[in-house]
Structures are given as structure tokens and as C-alpha cells.
């Protein structure tokens, strides 16, 4: 593997990171907070590659040192860098859906009860599904009790029920988990009528008493209104 090829691969890793940032596809893989770090990493990689390329062009002896010390063992391994370049720039696998996500609740088994901040005011404030699950399981102020809220997620069809789910990531797609709430109440038939993985905005009240170990801390929501929506650009919740 010549130094020229190595430098080009280094440059391409940096450029593919820039592409991910510009096109926003990095959100399929990691959380938004990593953005400044990704930009910094791309800048460093591109600078390193450019510095090496410039130095090799200046030193006419670059051809002689092609073997590149330290790479005598399995030099072809550097070619593996084409895999992430190809996947992140050309293929761009989709964000994780319900398939392939560990089906565990986000809440802990004996959740330590603590006071959550009050819900936003308004008739039916928007609450994320993981936040709803946490509040139902561990909120000592019972902020969900009797309150109409709006949640957004995709449908999960089970033999005896329909759930609304959201994939939660903490750092990257490797630690993705599924947060879900069970739908019931007057408008559940409409939600159940949609096929699996339909994005819905649902209005209703969650009964925190349904979040117990027996239900795996999946709370039940009495649904009063269901609206079908387009799949959002960023499908993860955090």
C-alpha cells in the first residue's frame, strides 16, 4: 500500500465525515451532541492528510519509502477503511426501527421515585415517549395523572394490542433501545387500523398506575385522538 493511497484514504475518511455532517445522515448513527466533535475530527483528518500529501510531493524521495514502516504486517488492512467510507457516504443505511432493537423498557426495575419538572402548560403538551415512560414509572409528583398529553411514535402491532414506540439512543446506534406505551381507550381502533411502523401523533391520558413490573413498565394510554403524520427526519428520541 503506497503512502499516496494511505493519504488518500485518510483524506476520504475526513471527507466522508464532512458529507455525513452536511447531509445530516450522521443522525442515523449517533446523537446530535456529537456534531462539534465530528466536525473537529474531520478537520484534523483532512489537515493530517493534506500535510502528508504536501510533504510527500515536496520530498521527491517519496517513491523510495513506499513500504512505509510499521505497515509491513498485513498492509492490506488499510483498505478496510473503504468499508466505513462506502457505508457512510454511498450506501447510508437507514436509522434503526423497531426491528433489531433490544425490547427493554427504559425505566429501571425499582425506579427511585423523584420529582420530575412539571409538564408544559397548554391543553395537550407534547411529551416524548421515553419521558412519558420515565414519568409513569418514577415521578413522585404524578405529573401525568389526569393530564391530556400528545406523543409521537411509530405503531407496533402485537397479537392482542397496539403500542406506540420510539427508538432511544444514548450514544450511538449500538446502544439503541425501544421505549413504548400501550394504546387503549376510545380511539384505539383507529390506531390499530394502521399497518405496523406507521407514524402517528396521539392525544390521550396515561395512567401511571399501569406502569408496573408485570407490564414491564410499559404504561397504558387512553387515546382520544389519532393523527397520521409523515416519518420525521430524525426518528430517534434521546
Amino acid at each position, binding site marked *: 500500500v503506497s503512502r499516496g493511497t494511505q493519504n488518500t484514504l485518510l483524506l476520504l475518511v475526513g471527507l466522508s465525515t464532512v458529507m455525513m455532517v452536511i447531509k445530516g445522515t450522521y443522525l442515523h448513527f449517533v446523537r446530535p451532541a456529537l456534531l462539534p466533535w465530528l466536525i473537529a475530527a474531520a478537520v484534523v483528518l483532512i489537515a493530517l492528510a493534506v500535510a*502528508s500529501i504536501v510533504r510527500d510531493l515536496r520530498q521527491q524521495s517519496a517513491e523510495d519509502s513506499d513500504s512505509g514502516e510499521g505497515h509491513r504486517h498485513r498492509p492490506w488492512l488499510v483498505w478496510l477503511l473503504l468499508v466505513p467510507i462506502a457505508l457512510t457516504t*454511498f450506501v447510508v443505511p437507514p436509522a434503526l426501527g423497531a426491528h433489531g432493537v433490544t425490547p427493554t423498557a427504559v425505566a429501571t426495575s425499582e425506579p427511585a421515585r423523584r420529582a420530575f419538572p412539571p409538564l408544559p402548560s397548554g391543553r395537550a403538551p407534547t411529551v416524548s415517549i421515553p419521558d412519558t415512560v420515565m414519568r409513569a414509572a418514577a415521578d413522585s409528583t404524578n405529573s401525568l395523572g389526569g393530564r391530556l398529553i400528545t406523543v409521537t411514535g411509530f405503531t407496533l402491532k402485537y397479537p392482542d394490542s397496539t403500542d406506540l414506540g420510539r427508538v432511544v439512543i444514548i450514544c450511538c446506534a449500538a*446502544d439503541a433501545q425501544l421505549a413504548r406505551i400501550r394504546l387503549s381507550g376510545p380511539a384505539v381502533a383507529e390506531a390499530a387500523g394502521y399497518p405496523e411502523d406507521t407514524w402517528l401523533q396521539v392525544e390521550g391520558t396515561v395512567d401511571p398506575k399501569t406502569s408496573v413490573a408485570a407490564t414491564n413498565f410499559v404504561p397504558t394510554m387512553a387515546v382520544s385522538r389519532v393523527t397520521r403524520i409523515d416519518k420525521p427526519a430524525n426518528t430517534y428520541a434521546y
Partner: protein
Amino acid sequence: MEVLLASLIALALSAGAMSAFVADNADVGVAATVFCGVFVQALPFLVLGVVVSGLIAAFVSADRLARWLPRRPAVAVAVAGVGGAALPGCECGSVPVARRLFGEGVSGAAALTFMLSAPAINPVVLVATAVAFPGQPAMVLARCVASLITAVTMGLLWLRWGRTEWVTKRLPTPHDTDASRWTVFTEAARHDFLQAASYLVLGAAAAAVLRVAVPPWIFQHLAGHLVLGVLTMALFAVVLALCSEADAFVAASLTMLPLLPRLVFLVVGPAVDVKLSAMQAGMFGRPFAIRFGPATFVVATVVATIVGLVLVGGGR
């Protein structure tokens, strides 16, 4: 160079077909996304790591490092373990840094101890653990203590039995000794990145395949078996290859298990997993990696179990 250009053109032309293939095969899609997740998440930390290792190459000679370390080997290793708290980040960055610090004798043991302790006991990871386990400060303390003991134990084991000839990968030495600091820095950072990143690809691929191949229900059946639970969670830490800043949240969500197996998961994960072993094989050499990985696994599992029994108890 021509091969590279040809591959890139081939990739660009087949991108549509590959995207369709990934979209049609759910498992392939999950594996590809998990692979990208592990790689993209590790990339900034790896870059930070190679910048630090480049700075070490440019400014810190092995002799100077040996002079900084305390004379007594055991004290030197302990200092290196505590010093790990000063590099906030996850485990990918600490491998190239440790490779640069690695030297003969005491400084080798100190570098390995630093490599194991840095990703586990730095403030970011400990705060993440505290947030993931609210109201259970014993978990944070147990993780910190067990990881530190694991790192120091491995350093002392290396002092006693480690052999420098296992480290087959040599770092490039500058052609001319009068090379500028900037040249030394860029060459070291460039070399370390290429080496570590290509092995990171292997490790991330292994983690992605295992993620799809290992059925997730396995560990739901382990609630009642403490020994089986500990062993399974230790193995899970190896195959899942999670970032040490995220693993606490995953451990917190495995509610069907007692605290002890989850603590083992948190101590083993940052010390040894498939992507780390791949990167160690890349930076240190295969004879090193096949000895160091299993030894770390055993030490981390045993230490975490003992510390866990004392600090968080065996039951729920």
C-alpha cells in the same frame, strides 16, 4: 492509487443497488447501521487519541517519561492508574496513546494500566454512571474501584510476566533525527490513525454481526442465576463493544438482572471488547492481543465480582 480510484468508481456506481439490498434485508440493515454507529461514535475519540499520541511522539521521549514516573514499580503503576482519570473520553482513544507511552519495564506496565483505567474512571464516565443509576451511589463507587483495581492488577501482572517481544508492531522512527516537531507530530498521528482505524473497522464489524446474531432474549432468562448472569454479562460486554460513556445506561435498562452482573458488565466493557482487542492487535501486535485480552477479561470479571459482592451485594 489506481486500484483505489477504480474501487471508488465501482462503489459510486453500485451505491443504488447496495442501498436497495440494505433496505430489503432488515438484518443486514441493522448490522450496517450498528457498524456505522460504532465507527462514527469512535471516530472523534480516536482522532483525539491520535492527536495526543502525536504530541507524545513529538514532545515526550521515553527517557523523560521514565524520569517522571516514581521509582518503585508498584507506585508507578498505581500513579498511572489514577492518572487515567485525566483523559476524558472513551476507550478507543486510549489505545494509541498507551502505545506511544509504552516502553521497557516499568513504563510499559504503567502505559497498559493507563490504557485500562482511562476509559473507565474518567469523570465523564462516572457522571454518566451516576445519572444512569439514580439513588445508587454504590454503583459509581464500585465501578470506579473495580476498574482501577483491574487496571493496576494488569499492570503488575505485566511487570511480573509480560514480555516485550509479544509487542511485534513497531512504531515508525523518523528518517532523519533533525525532523521538525511538526513532521514528527503529523507522521505519528497519521500512522496511528491508519493503524488503529483499520482495526477499528474489524472490531466494529464483529460487534455489528454479533448484535444481529445473538438473540436478545438470552439474557432475560438469567435473572435467577448469579454465576451464569455474571459470566453472560461479562461476555455481553465483550461482544456488544459499547462506548464506555453509554454502557451505564444500557446496564441500567437490563432491569431483569441484579446489580452485580450489571456491575461486571460496566467493568469488563471498557477494559476488553471485540473492537478494543482488534485495535490492540493493530497497535501492539497479535501475540500481545491474544494474551492481554483474555487475561484482562478474567481479571476484570473476578475483580468486579469481588468488589460488587462487597459494595453492592449479591442479590437485588
